[in-house]
Every structure is written in structure tokens, then in C-alpha cells.
């Protein structure tokens, strides 16, 4: 396969420039500046942090009080061209009354401008992709929560959008359906779709996202790859677990080398937790230590560079930050 040149121009990016949204005196989001590339981008933050507002701004359902938004070079103020390239699945359980699953997907395809010949084929393809072909002719009102979630996802992907904005798309799905849906997201992301989703399930976000956007109280707290964000948090030493045969000796060595601010023995005494403020420096020096010493090192694993840790450090268990 001939590798395609990477295009970093605005036509392939979602760009928010100094975007603020106020609901009267209530702050939705404030001064958000972001550039989002293709792949899975997860919005993470406590309830009321502004995730849904940000998604609604991207979909053009609400307009910013200040700033500018460009989605693949298009303005959300121009719904005719933007919405052709955008698929949206909101957080609220929403369906026009009385429709079957198939009618639901087909109606919105027609609203997108697909002709009758295209509608049936595309609707069925999307329904099959979310695994609801058997129940597509049943009324949506009779669906379980997970089935409703999936049929809404089907209507969001049916018209083959370039950008998918999904608010809490994994809510109500059973473990098997969650795994299948995550696989679908990853497949779409690999193909080059922008997937912007919000979720409260941090380990799943961590597993599937290329980058995260942490938002709290309407303010952007961090954005980027989880590991990169973690390294930027210099106020919290990074914790690394080193499995080895003589952890006590290793503790003395790391302190002597001045590359750790804290060391703690693992309860099974077969490992050492080391805290360091400069992870890059630590790894460089530790390599030398490992070669020079005769320690039998089994593994070196960072233990707090996951999203849960980043979330806790930046936003706190209740939100509100450190």
C-alpha cells in the first residue's frame, strides 16, 4: 500500500480558537483553544464540567458566545455543509415517537439527503454494524437501554460522516456490547474518522483514546496523550514500580544517584515503588545503574501514568483540582 502523505492542514482538523459559551450568567466553557486531529479524542471531566456544551458547540447545536470553531475547515454556523460531514449521538435518550429502529435510521438518512435507493442499503449496513439487524423492525420504544444506545450510534454512522461526536456512547451497554462498540470506534479511528466522545469510565477511555481532553468547571485543564499529560504534571512525582531481587539495595542506589524523591518497598518485598519528579532523567540514569549493578531486574512499570491518576491529580476525586 502506498503511504498517504500526512495532511496537517485545517481541512483535516477540528480547531477551536478562544471559544467561550455563557448561558446568561452561567459559564458553559471558557476560553477553550484546541486542535483535534483524526483518531479517538475523549472528553473527560466531572458532571457539569462543560463536556456536553463543548460537543454541542462542535455540532453547531449551540453557537459560541465568543471565539471561532472550524470543523474540517467548516464553520458550525453553516449547517448545510457541516452536518453532511458530521454524525452526532447525544447523551439524552432521544427518539421521534412511534418509529421502528429501521425507520429511525432511514428517516435521518433521508434528512441527510440520501436518495431512496441509497437509504435502505446504508440503513441496513449501519444497523448490522451495531448488531441490531434482528430487531430493526421493532419499535424503538420497546428497545432496552443498550439497544437504544446502539441504534442511536447506527443513525450517527449511517451517512458515513468524517466526524463523529458521541456523548457517553458506552452508557447502558453490557460488557460484550461495550467491547464490540470500542472495537468499532477503533476501527473507524484507524480509517481516519475524527471520533470525539465523552465518558466517565476512565479505564475504557484510557484503553481506546489517542488523546484526552480534561475539562473542569468550563476550563480546559489538559489535553494530549495520557502519558504526555502525566509527564507535564510536575507537581506530582511520577510513581514507578521496579520489580527486582534486592529492592532495599536498589532504594539506596536511587537515593545515592539523586534521581528519586521517595522510595517504598512493595508489600511482597520483591519490588520497589520509586517516586521521581523527572521521569526522563530517571530512566536515563536508571539504565546506567542497572548495567553497573548486579541486580536482577524483572520489570520497570510506571504505575500512575494512566488516565485515572491524571484525572485525580488534575481534577481530584470530586472535581476541583489539586
Amino acid at each position, binding site marked *: 500500500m502506498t503511504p498517504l502523505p500526512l495532511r496537517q492542514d485545517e481541512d483535516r482538523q477540528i480547531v477551536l480558537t478562544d471559544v467561550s459559551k455563557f448561558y446568561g450568567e452561567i459559564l458553559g466553557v471558557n476560553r477553550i483553544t484546541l486542535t483535534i486531529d483524526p483518531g479517538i479524542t475523549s472528553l473527560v471531566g466531572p458532571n457539569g464540567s462543560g463536556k456536553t456544551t463543548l460537543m454541542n458547540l462542535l455540532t453547531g447545536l449551540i453557537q459560541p458566545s465568543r471565539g471561532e470553531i472550524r470543523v474540517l475547515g467548516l464553520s458550525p454556523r453553516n449547517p448545510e455543509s457541516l452536518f453532511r460531514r458530521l454524525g452526532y449521538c447525544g447523551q439524552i435518550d432521544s427518539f421521534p415517537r412511534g418509529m421502528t429502529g429501521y425507520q429511525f435510521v432511514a428517516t435521518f438518512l433521508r434528512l441527510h439527503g*440520501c436518495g431512496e435507493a441509497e437509504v435502505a442499503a446504508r440503513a441496513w449496513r449501519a444497523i448490522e454494524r451495531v448488531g441490531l439487524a434482528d430487531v430493526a423492525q421493532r419499535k424503538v420504544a420497546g428497545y432496552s437501554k443498550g439497544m437504544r444506545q446502539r441504534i442511536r450510534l447506527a443513525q450517527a454512522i449511517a451517512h458515513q460522516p468524517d466526524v463523529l461526536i458521541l456523548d457517553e456512547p458506552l452508557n447502558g451497554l453490557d460488557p460484550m456490547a461495550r467491547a464490540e462498540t470500542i472495537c468499532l470506534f477503533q476501527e473507524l479511528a484507524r480509517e481516519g474518522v475524527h471520533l470525539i466522545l465523552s465518558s466517565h469510565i476512565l479505564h475504557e477511555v484510557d484503553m481506546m483514546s489517542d488523546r484526552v481532553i480534561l475539562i473542569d468547571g468550563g476550563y480546559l485543564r489538559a489535553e494530549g496523550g495520557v502519558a504526555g499529560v502525566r509527564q507535564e504534571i510536575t507537581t506530582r512525582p511520577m510513581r514507578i514500580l521496579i520489580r527486582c531481587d534486592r529492592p532495599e539495595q536498589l532504594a539506596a542506589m536511587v537515593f545515592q544517584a539523586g534521581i528519586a524523591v521517595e522510595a517504598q518497598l512493595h508489600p511482597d518485598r520483591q519490588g520497589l515503588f520509586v517516586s521521581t519528579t523527572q521521569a526522563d532523567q530517571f530512566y536515563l540514569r536508571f539504565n546506567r545503574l542497572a548495567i553497573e549493578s548486579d541486580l536482577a531486574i524483572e520489570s520497570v512499570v510506571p504505575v500512575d501514568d494512566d488516565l485515572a491518576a491524571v484525572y485525580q491529580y488534575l481534577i481530584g476525586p470530586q472535581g476541583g483540582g489539586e
Partner: protein
Amino acid sequence: MAVYEHRYQAYEGALTSNWRRFLVLPRYSWQVLARSRLFLILMMASLICPLVYTILIYLHHNANALAAFGISPDQVLPIDADFFRVFVGVQTLLALLVSVLVGPTLVSPDLVNNALPLYLCRPLTRSEYLLGKMVVLMALLSGITWVPGVLLFLFQAFLGGGEWLLGEGQKGWLAVAIFLSSMAWILVLTLLALALSAWLRWRSIASGAFFALFIVPFPFGMVIFEMFQNRIGFGINLTMALDAIRHGLFGTTSEIPVSLTLGEGALVWAGYCLVALWLLSRRVRAYEVIAS
């Protein structure tokens, strides 16, 4: 950093034209309505008057048929402005009943089921959404009012020929009067039905409010008039306004001793339409903003 294959192809096929995109909306509404027995009964009832009028026009032009029924030509209703005005009056009353039945089902279910964001994140504006919902009712009401009215006019013009059409009075204007007076009813009924459907989520209350709009202002206006000899109370009387518009367009005189002029009627009518549009613009939004 993930490796992006960039092999995803967004849909680039043919699209239906923008101007008729809103017509997707009435599609299911009509399908749902067709399952309602009461709706079908009303639609059948709306055919009675056109049928009777067709017979009357036919008899008017057929001396043999009149003789067969034992009716003298003097007893046959004259086919003039009043003839068509009464027809429009009867049919618009049926249109009101259809609006009461259909109106509350238009916007309210989308609001109750939070479906508006789904519609509005498509290549569909708020105006097009409303237009799509208006078409549901406007098409039905047109089928009850001006379409059979104009067909009856054409039938009469065909049987009466140039003598009737070009004779006393400007008969050609009657077709325009049938259309305009029906459209005045249709537009205000549709806008009010949508506005009430958007603001009142309970169907029975929306239907009750709809009826009340046409009934309550009349005694209110009359009481004000009797007490103060002031016509200001008629300023909210939509029924009277529509009656004035109909009489004005057909060039006939109202039987009601106190009535509005064509201009006053049009003003009241426009006021109701504007209020309904304002109510809709406040309600039909992708998201409801609640200020604390």
C-alpha cells in the same frame, strides 16, 4: 500516536435537493395519522359538503334533472359569491376539527422525546423543521378547503360557461377569494396548532386551548362592547377576524350586527400569526437553556 490509514471515504454520492429536504418530516406523520380512525372519519366527513355542492351545481344547470326531482328553477340556490363563501365556511370549520386532532401531535412528541437535537444536527434548519411540520397540516387542510372549493368553481365555470364567468360581478375573483380566505384559515390554524403543540405537552390540554382560542374571545368581545360600546374587545377575536376576511374577499356582508372590517380582520389575523411564530421561535430549539 496511532497510525491512521486514511482509507475512510465519507459519502460523496448524489444528494436530494435542499429545497425538498423538509418533506421527509411529514412522511411518517401522515402514516401515523392514517392509522387513526377518528382522523379518517373527519376526512370522510369533509367530502360530504363538496359532494352536496357538486350536486347543487349540476342540478342548477340541468333542467331535466330538476324536473325529475320536482324542483322548480326558482328554488335552486343561486351560484354566486355567497354560495362559495358558505362552502368555505363549512369546510374551514371541519379544518378546525382536523387541526384540533392533528395539531397537538406535531411538535410536542419531539420535545417530549428530546428528538429536536437529532433533527437539528442534520442539514436542516429550525425554519425547515417548522416548515416540514407545517406541511403536515397545511396539505391536509388544503385538501379540505380550497382544493375542493377551486374544483367546484371550475366545475361551475365549465357548466356555466363564459356567460356566468363574465356576467354580472367579477366571478373570476371568486376562485382567488376561495383560495385566499382558505389560506388565511389554514395558515393561522397551522401556526397556532404548532405553537400550542410546542408549549403544551398534554394533548388534551393543547386541544382544549385550541378550541378556547376560537370560542372564548367572542363572548369576551361582546361583553366589552355591550358594557362600554367599544369594539376593542374584538381585537382578540380570531373567529370574527377570519369571518371579516372571508366576507371582505367574497364581497359579501356579515350577518353579525357588529363586525370587523377586512383591514381590521387582517390585522388581528396577522397578530395571531406573529404571536404563534414568536412562541415557536422560543420553543423550537435544539437545547433548552435554563437560567438559574
